[in-house]
């Protein structure tokens, strides 16, 4: 997984290491799929994340946090949708970003693969549990 550009025309030479620079795209390279996911998720999370954090911890007293808070909130289906979308997008965005940072610091493909798998498994398990809870929680 990489957020950087990869050359479209590999030619006879080995691929140029991506540098994360953006002007390169104009010189005959294409963005990787993960770069597009990061961009798309960034624009959506730009709204969702502050909305979540401010709505959960600032506009409501943290001392009154509990099941009742979510029962009230999830009576509105839009909040369920937003919370579920936040988990999915934030985990995808964060997973790709964290993977890029950590694998950039290790040598060897085995270590990089181990990091990628560990991040993917942890985020997938926690994310699936949270999304199923958000979607299936009984408000009664």
């Amino acid at each position, binding site marked *: 997984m990489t957020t950087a550009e990869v050359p479209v025309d590999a030619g006879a030479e080995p691929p140029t290491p991506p540098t994360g*620079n953006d002007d390169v795209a104009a010189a005959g390279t294409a963005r990787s799929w993960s770069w597009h996911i990061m961009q798309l998720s960034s*624009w959506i999370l730009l709204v969702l994340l502050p909305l979540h954090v401010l709505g959960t911890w600032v506009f409501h007293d943290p001392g009154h946090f509990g*099941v009742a808070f979510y029962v009230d909130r999830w009576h509105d289906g839009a909040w369920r949708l937003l919370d579920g979308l936040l988990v999915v997008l934030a985990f995808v965005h964060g997973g790709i970003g964290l993977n*890029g*940072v950590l694998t950039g610091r290790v040598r060897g493909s085995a270590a990089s693969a181990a990091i990628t798998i560990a991040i993917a498994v942890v985020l997938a398990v926690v994310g699936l549990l949270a999304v199923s809870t958000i979607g299936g929680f009984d408000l009664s």
Partner: protein
Amino acid sequence: MDDLGTDTDRDLVDTSPPTPVEGGDDVVGAPEPEEGVEGPSRSRWGAISGAVVLLYLVVWAAGLSHIASRATFNRWGDAMGSLAARLVICGVVLATLFHTFDGLRRLLADAVPRTRARDVQLRAWVLFGTWAVALPCFAVIVWPWVAETTR
């Protein structure tokens, strides 16, 4: 908290070219960019704040998956009223705001490349926006504990 401002201030002074990491948000240990090719500058604190936000979301999502056991979840909720928990929440709010404003700066640099010439000013706006929103939020988060304690 002061380090956040201090390091970013140093970034403002440092005019050396950014060193992006392959696939990452960070600049640490990355190869130098090509001569004359300059993307949106990245900051170490952008990656650190992102990691803090991701950690918070993982903990929040893991806790949320236990909401069916209502007594346990409410007990955790009660703990969020303590001063220590409120200070941790302040840290999460700060990381969220910084990552959001810094991310907006980078998205703008991607969408409108000529804004890269104003990167220094944009970084200053990131810091200003972060603290301008964060400080009132800190007051709102901590004040109920202060009012309760001094009553």
